[in-house]
């Protein structure tokens, strides 16, 4: 689905009124809540219903750290986002929950958008293993560090991975300066 806007902030992706929920689910209906009231907004275009890849303008996901924005996109069915650039926290949040963020040169994203607008049935393939986006006869590589790639492919539990290094954590902990503040506990 092509969303040809730059600097889409997380307040637009999921407005604050939705953040009162204590669950990880139930955010899909709030996705782009304000923009989707406009019948012409691309999310209301039946041709793109069920799309798993979102094509977006630069600096996607700026603003608030709310991971709820990623949950809302996932619940709607998106599994990957292609853009020229992403905001840092948003990109981290995506990596933590298995949403692929594929960063491509701006002109490549624009060409993809035009191609998908011209033919909504066009299939776009993201290969996480190969770190490529392919469509309409073009293949573009996108940057993806080995660590994130491995976690995307294997769906590993980040906490479990870190706890493999529990001894390193304890060792570091023992060296912390005594003057560092401590809170009394509950």
């Amino acid at each position, binding site marked *: 689905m092509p969303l040809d806007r730059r600097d889409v902030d997380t307040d637009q992706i999921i407005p604050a009124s939705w953040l009162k929920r204590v669950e990880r689910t139930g955010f899909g209906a709030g996705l782009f809540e304000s923009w989707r009231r406009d019948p012409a907004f691309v999310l209301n275009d039946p041709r793109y219903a069920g799309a798993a890849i979102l094509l977006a303008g630069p600096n996607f996901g700026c603003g608030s750290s709310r991971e709820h924005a990623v949950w809302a996109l996932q619940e709607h069915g998106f599994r990957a986002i292609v853009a020229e650039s992403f905001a840092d926290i948003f990109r981290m949040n995506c990596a933590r929950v298995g949403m692929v963020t594929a960063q491509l040169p701006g002109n490549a994203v624009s060409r993809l958008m035009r191609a998908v607008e011209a033919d909504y049935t066009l299939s776009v393939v993201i290969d996480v293993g190969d770190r490529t986006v392919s469509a309409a006869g073009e293949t573009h590589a996108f940057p993806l560090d080995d660590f994130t790639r491995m976690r995307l492919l294997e769906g590993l539990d980040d906490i479990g991975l870190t706890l493999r290094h529990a001894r390193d954590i304890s060792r570091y902990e023992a060296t912390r300066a005594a003057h560092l503040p401590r*809170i009394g506990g*509950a």
Partner: protein
Amino acid sequence: MGRTLSQKVWDSRVVRRAEGEPDLLYVDLHLVHEVTSPQAFDGLRLAGRRVRRPDLTLATADHNTPTVDIDKPIADAVSARQLSALEENCREFGVRCYPLGHALQGIVHVIGPQLGLTQPGMVIVCGDSHTSTHGAFGAVAFGIGTSEVEHVLATQTIAQARPGTMAVTVEGELARGVTAKDVILGVIERIGISGGTGTIVEYRGAAIRRLSMEGRMTVCNMSIEAGARAGMIAPDDVTFAYLEGRPHAPTGAAWERALDGWRSLATDEGAAFDREVRVDARQLRPYVTWGTNPAQSSTIDGVVPDPESFGDPARQETAARALRYQDLLPGTPIRDIAVDAVFIGSCTNARIEDLRAAAAVIDGRRVRDGLRALVVPGSAQVKAEAEREGLDALFRRAGFEWRAAGCSMCLGMNPDVLGPGQRCASTSNRNFEGRQGPGGRTHLVSPVVAAATAIAGHFATPEDL
């Protein structure tokens, strides 16, 4: 080849570094609030995990708390459930919590520094993007999402690739009436809302050094509005004077030892930044945002720009879209724009100095008829201090509503929201579409401009009154 301030702090907190992997960083302080934590605590419960270091974790309720009738049951059942979930989770996992009504409750980024928990050289995280505030003390402080909150709760560490470095140097002296808020709005106007992406920004230069700790917090707070991972200022005597005597600051011999370490926290002579930006303080004026992102601003002496004046077609379209949303015409003098509401509050500008500065402007004057004006102190302690100084009475006499502490109308999660089409002069940090309520229009300003605007009914500086 020396290291920058951010690199020094970062390197000192590395638990584990391995080729091809992000650094595993130790977290010295994890601040928690009701909105981004319930799913994280649920995750711990599901996996049978505990909070590794409750003594380095502090929770408070701020985003979703009402600012009136705080002693009465909360009307919105969903909000009430979220607030009680925080208290229950903290009880279950042994985390200290300052809930609504507690004398130490407040916006998470106001209470950390206030309690002396925020100290130089620390790594501080919180499930909130304005965690960058704490960088004003020379800490590496950044916002994280809920999955990372769970990770920090379970492991007291966070896996992060080392960011790039950027220096923003503000040389010279600020003109009278130009505040820390104008410094950061001016910086963002120059570098853009993604100008700092991927970096930790260090603010340097004479104009920064001359800011109070609270002013420095305002500057670092909005680093995220330039896309930066964090903002930092090297600690100095201003920092140490602010910290000394606070409840969690070290004392006696430990204070002296801490000082020795803190004094080494400065960028080395000759250390190179990935990017450097210089700003002449004398060119800064009070800023007012006209658009729907924090870089879309003008000095108060300016006019609403013509979207055609932006070179890049994408930016032209963004500006045109912003003006449609904001219902503004190009060429309109900023001072001619009338507002319906004024909000003095948020983690950017709701500390005691902000309230004093605003109060000095309104003293003996009246809020313009028909205008709604709100003061929401940053914490219960700030509120109590202001009340000791009589600021509450002064604000009330002028026609302001004096509220209890919280995030309030900064993000429009609690009942303090703008109506559709309403225009607000706000001391907060984001002017995104609908940020302060669906259809609401936000203009970011300093506390003194907000106060003067409340009196004039349109954008104004104190000198205009």
